[in-house]
């Protein structure tokens, strides 16, 4: 069964029957030194730093995956009101955190 997610209070078309607390998922990623040097060079003219964009998206996807796993372990079939938080921990590492409310929803 696929876990449903949304960042609104409900899953459209479904009714929440039970709340199972807050599901969380986080991951800490550090940059690759080679990528960092390349990003520094890319920065000469400014603009997008693709290496970081990809790294952070990968990390965020993993954080969501862990959040869903947490929700799954609670017996939920959906996570509503998902939020993200990003923070810098230690030198050059970023923590990506995803959280939401694990709920059981039924159709109708």
């Amino acid at each position, binding site marked *: 069964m696929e876990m*449903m*997610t*949304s*960042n*609104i*209070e409900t*899953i*459209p*078309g479904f009714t929440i029957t039970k709340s199972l607390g807050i599901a969380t998922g986080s991951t800490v990623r550090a*940059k690759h030194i080679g990528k*960092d040097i390349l*990003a*520094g*060079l*890319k*920065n*000469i*003219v*400014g*603009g*997008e*730093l*693709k290496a*970081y*964009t990809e790294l*952070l*998206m990968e990390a*965020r996807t993993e954080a*969501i995956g862990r959040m869903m796993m947490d929700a799954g372990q609670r017996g939920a079939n959906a996570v509503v009101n*998902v939020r*993200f938080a*990003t*923070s*810098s921990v*230690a*030198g*050059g590492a*970023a923590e990506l955190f995803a959280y939401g409310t694990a709920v059981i929803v039924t159709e109708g």
Partner: protein
Amino acid sequence: MFESGDVGEILVYSLILIGIAFGAFFPLAFIYSMLFGGLHQSKMFKRLLARERHVATLVGGDNIHTLSTPISLDKITQSSLVMTNITVGPSWWQLFLGGIKSIFGGNIQSFDKILAYGRSEVVQRLREQAIGEGWDEVINVRVETAMVMNKIKGGQQNKLGTLEFVAYGTGIR
């Protein structure tokens, strides 16, 4: 075979060459940044505007909004989280100008430009992703900003000034 003196000489010359290369690289890169950074960023803006117009004509308005209820859709059959991100950084020249400006305070225009770009770009990507994944509308869109890749050690915070923008919402169809 080399004499030991020859090896020493080669080592010294190569070190000098490396020194010159590094010494020349940073000033040259800085001048390049000053001359072509603005041009490069103007091009990025033009491309972004073209894409925005394209999507606007494709969907006839906008397919993303910040309300938590759908506007044009009557019945929702499926929904899921949609998210996109972008990491942007100012050019070396903008960073330098920003550094000077921050001594006196006030509006740092060189940073405004790259921030405006990053935010518009991430929202545009959300529109494109929504179209790509087949969502009719993306509701409750949120845009977040975070400083990433900070260098906490040595008191030099975020030397590159890199910022990450995240846009996410609930795609419905």
